[in-house]
């Protein structure tokens, strides 16, 4: 699922049961907070600042949502990769937590 702008953005599908809830958002934000420039999550026409849990939550991403993660500075490529891995790995959460 890598598009032409592969260096700056990735498209991922939310696979974990709970979607982007507070804990998973917190994990993304923790990574995004180390970035040099802004990192965005896009869903449809809306976008959220990946370093803000609250902003991520307002995107209301349930399981199966397609989102695009994008960076503004190539130096943040590692963080982009890490967030992608986190999302695709379902945040490694046990199935029974909510």
């Amino acid at each position, binding site marked *: 699922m890598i598009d032409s702008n592969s260096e700056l953005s990735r498209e991922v599908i939310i696979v974990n049961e*709970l*979607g982007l*809830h*507070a*804990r998973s958002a*917190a994990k993304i*934000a*923790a990574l995004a907070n180390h970035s040099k420039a802004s990192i965005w999550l896009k869903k449809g026409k809306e976008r959220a*600042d990946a*370093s*803000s*849990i*609250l*902003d991520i*939550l*307002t995107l*209301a991403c*349930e399981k199966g949502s397609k989102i695009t993660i994008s960076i503004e500075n190539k130096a943040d490529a590692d963080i982009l990769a890490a967030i992608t891995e986190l999302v695709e790995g379902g945040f490694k959460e046990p199935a029974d*937590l*909510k």
Partner: protein
Amino acid sequence: MKSIAEEIIIKGINASPGICIGKAYRVDREGVEIVEKYKIQAKDLSNEVKRFKAAVKKSRDELLGILKKSPEELQHAHILETHLALLKDKMLYGRCIETIKQESINAEWALKTVISNLREVFQTMIDPYLKERSADVVQVADNIMRNLTGAKQVNIAAIKKRVILVAQDLSPAETCQINLERVKGFITDRGGKASHTGIIARSLEIPAVVGLKEATSTIRNDDLIIVDGNSGIVILHPTESTLLQYEERKIDYEEYKAVITRDSKAPAESLDGVRLSVMGNIELPEEVFALLNYGGDGIGLYRTEFQYFNRTDFPGEDELFDKYKDVVEVMHPKPVTIRTLDINGDKALTNQFNYEETNPALGLRAIRYCLKKPQVFKDQLRAILRAATFGNVRILFPMISTYFEIREATRMLDQAAESLEKNGLPYNRDIEIGAMIEVPSAVIMADVLAENVDFFSIGTNDLIQYSLAIDRGNEQVAHLFQPLDPAIIRMLKHVADVAREKEIKIFMCGEMAGTPHHVPLLLGIGMDELSMNPQSIPDIKRVIRSLNVADTRSFLKEVLTQTTAKSTFELIKATYGSILSEQMYSEGRKK
């Protein structure tokens, strides 16, 4: 400004006796202090931002402290981690700082605006999980707010004036968040005599007037007010002469109380030699000393909810055990009746309830809650069984409405004992087990329930509420909350008759037991033990000493022919008016 204000008298309901004079301290609906808005000068803006950052840091340190103490397997530890992250979230932290700078306003107001915007965003979301996240945001914000306004509270302490709380309503959880060292009395807009606020005020022995309707709209912070908990009035901006008059009344009342207390330690024995145990209801371990002071023969109701308030996790077994042990040891050999957790919507743990019940009185509370949360229940049962090795303990299960519940509760108590045995911890399973009779179905099924317990304890407040369908906190119908309603008297008699037939003991621990003019009736019904707010003990003992139990039995027959609460009350007055006259004297004095 204050000097020209006119004296205003506001009438309410007298919920807890006593008189206090002091400065008003308003608490708004959410239990967070009224937020003031004021401009910050350009040169002070960076300091205001610093003040905000300091409050956030303090909240962060507090959360880290709680996290450290919480066992990892607890789910809510994750919630706390999220809260920790939220503290520094751009949309909260960042925006507050921006708002302070851009609008040149104080940090409290900036926080308030940012939060109400965020709350709106979340509340319009469709996903119920996300909708609930607004609660997290509000909790985090409340935390910061408390630390922001903390400086003001220090000021109040610094002027060495204790305050009078003015609120629309206070939940029990809120009441225990408030530093009681600094609270002289309560006044609230809502509530009736038997509301939780009133009960708590009485148990803490501070004056309270409730059901004031307009109090919070007319009284401002720092206004001088007099609270007369005897006659149920509040005087705003009292004149010099009113102040003098009330200072005198306050002294009079305290003297009267001292006289009543003097012979309270002697046993309560009727004229014909029947001895009754007069016990106290307590909520906090600290109340034990007041109870003994008032001459209580034991604890008839130890409410255990307080240890569950004001925190985000459940108290552990050892912590509970320590608290129970303290009380049991001090009371030894007098009995301590520990009522298991009676949590409901009104007394909810922070974070434990993410949903709101539309009808908490009929919801998941007390034994229902405990049976649904076996681990929480088991921790408490183990703590009680362990404390029972230090004195005279009885266990009381609240809100029993079916036979199944008492059977399950007993089974879990046995399991708790077995697990303690396995762990090699000392415990005492040989304790009396009781069922609270506070739901009409339990009254009807009393004969079946009696087979499984050693005693019944009638909780009149809930029994009246459920039987007459009266919300005791609703001032529109509070006047219909009538302990003397013939339906209630018949229910009490039925339960007492069953208890005698099944040879188990019958106690009463509701408010009704602490009202002097109910005593002749309760003796006639055959109560073995009455338990009440500690400060009522001396008065009730005095009434019992002046009664003849044989007479009260024939009096009961007459009472049972009455058809209304009013005629029952008239009959009591006509028959026992002279014995109760001292009480009436005190009531007359309140006017």
